[in-house]
């Protein structure tokens, strides 16, 4: 299969943001931007008020990002669902390329979107950190360093786990359109349960190196504060991601229910 076509497909998936069903009840692009700017400014204002309180620690702010893995999951979920929302699934599925090929392009397109979002979150944190240092005399440059280092470790962990999280999101969305549709409610419970277990379980299993202790500032921030098996798990996750994409391709090939 021509690699050129694959990258063009990835480019299409990366840039394609329209959703016909959602746009019927949502705001125009300009109003969306206005809402986002308003929320960011409001966030800055509230957090500035917060910072005056006793015992404020910049690193605590990363607790606000604990929902990011779920957000990544729903980027994966949405990248498939929007084909059906936009009623373009017939074009997508009848492309003259293997189903693993088109599913793989979708995963890669949404992976690039996810990484862009994560970089955006980190840059926002950099801006906020610099702002806080400027306005709060209690904060030192070392606090900013710890805040950004903690954020880097967390965002980097999300970056390396995001292929697997996206693939799981895509699988939940795709199964609905196959003969295995009745399994969907069970998958929802399993995936959401696994996500919650990860948060709850990881904090308990590893009491020394976990993101709760890191976000509270109880452990010193470093570039790689988590145990090394976490990074090993991420590599295993990439293998699983590949297998999931192949499996989803097979499902679309043999079990599609239109």
């Amino acid at each position, binding site marked *: 299969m021509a690699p050129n076509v694959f990258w*063009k497909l990835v480019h299409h998936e990366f840039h394609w943001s329209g959703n016909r069903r959602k746009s019927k009840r949502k705001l125009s692009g300009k109003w969306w931007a206005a809402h986002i700017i308003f929320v960011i400014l409001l966030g800055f204002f509230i957090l500035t008020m917060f910072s005056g309180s006793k015992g404020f620690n910049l690193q605590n702010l990363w607790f606000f990002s604990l929902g990011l893995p779920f957000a990544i999951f729903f980027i994966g979920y949405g990248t498939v669902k929007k084909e059906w929302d936009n009623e373009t699934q017939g074009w997508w599925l*009848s492309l003259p390329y293997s189903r693993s090929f088109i599913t793989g392009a979708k995963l890669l397109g949404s992976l690039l979107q996810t990484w862009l979002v994560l970089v955006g979150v980190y840059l926002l944190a950099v801006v906020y950190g610099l702002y806080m240092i400027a306005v709060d005399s209690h904060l030192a440059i070392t606090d900013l360093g710890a805040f950004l280092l903690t954020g880097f470790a967390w965002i980097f962990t999300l970056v390396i786990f995001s292929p697997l999280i996206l693939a799981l999101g895509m699988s939940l969305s795709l199964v609905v359109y196959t003969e295995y549709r009745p399994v969907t409610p069970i998958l929802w419970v399993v995936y959401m349960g696994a996500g919650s277990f990860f948060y709850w379980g990881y904090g308990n299993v590893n009491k020394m190196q976990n993101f709760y202790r890191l976000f509270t500032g109880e452990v010193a921030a470093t570039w790689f504060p988590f145990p090394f098996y976490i990074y090993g798990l991420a590599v295993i996750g990439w293998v699983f991601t590949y297998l999931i994409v192949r499996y989803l391709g097979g499902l679309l090939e043999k079990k599609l229910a239109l």
Partner: protein
Amino acid sequence: MTDWAVKGEALFKSYGDNKALSGLDLAIPKNKIVGILGPNGCGKSTLFRMMTGLVKPDSGTIEVLGKTPGWRTNREIAYLPDRARWYPNHSVRQAFQWAESFFPGFEIESAVKLARYMDIDLHLTVKGMSRGQEARLMLILCIARRVPLIVLDEPFSGIDVISREHIIDGIIDFIGEREQTILISTHEIHEIEGMFEYVLLMDKGKALWSGDIEELRAQHGSLHTVFRSFYKRSVITNGS
């Protein structure tokens, strides 16, 4: 080389209790404009999805251009899916560029020519289009492909009657010189009747009649009369 564009034997397909195809036999000759006609739910769209490898038959065999349908055979098929829409953020020009990248045999110059003929502005964005304009765009995306088989599932729905006749005339002119098989399912038989060379009449997942339209007309009169006589039983059943 096979003389058939599509050949199927004893095709069955069910969705739960609903039987979409119930032992359909068909043999569609090459290089003809073919009408696949029948009432709603008679299995036309399922047949088209089967031809493009989107669904597999529960039993029976189907060959498209001498091969088992799948993503590989879709290189040679231009398929307009049932109830399809186009990507809302694309302009007409972007849609053509997209098609040029991913649809083998897509000729962008022909598409631009057809867009001009069908009065579609290249800068228009899909989300700002009427359903009729979007239907024309999707029709162009299929017609502008130089492939042996074009499969159009309800291509004229959403296009007003006046434009429809104009578009059909344009299509006839455009494809007149080409060696292509064109399958069209439609309810708009009044305007399109003159376009068909071959007809497959379906009901309840089976073929009622298939053959050259001249033969059909000689036996039963116009397509309107054919519909009334072939589907009389269904009408009575539905009406009772």
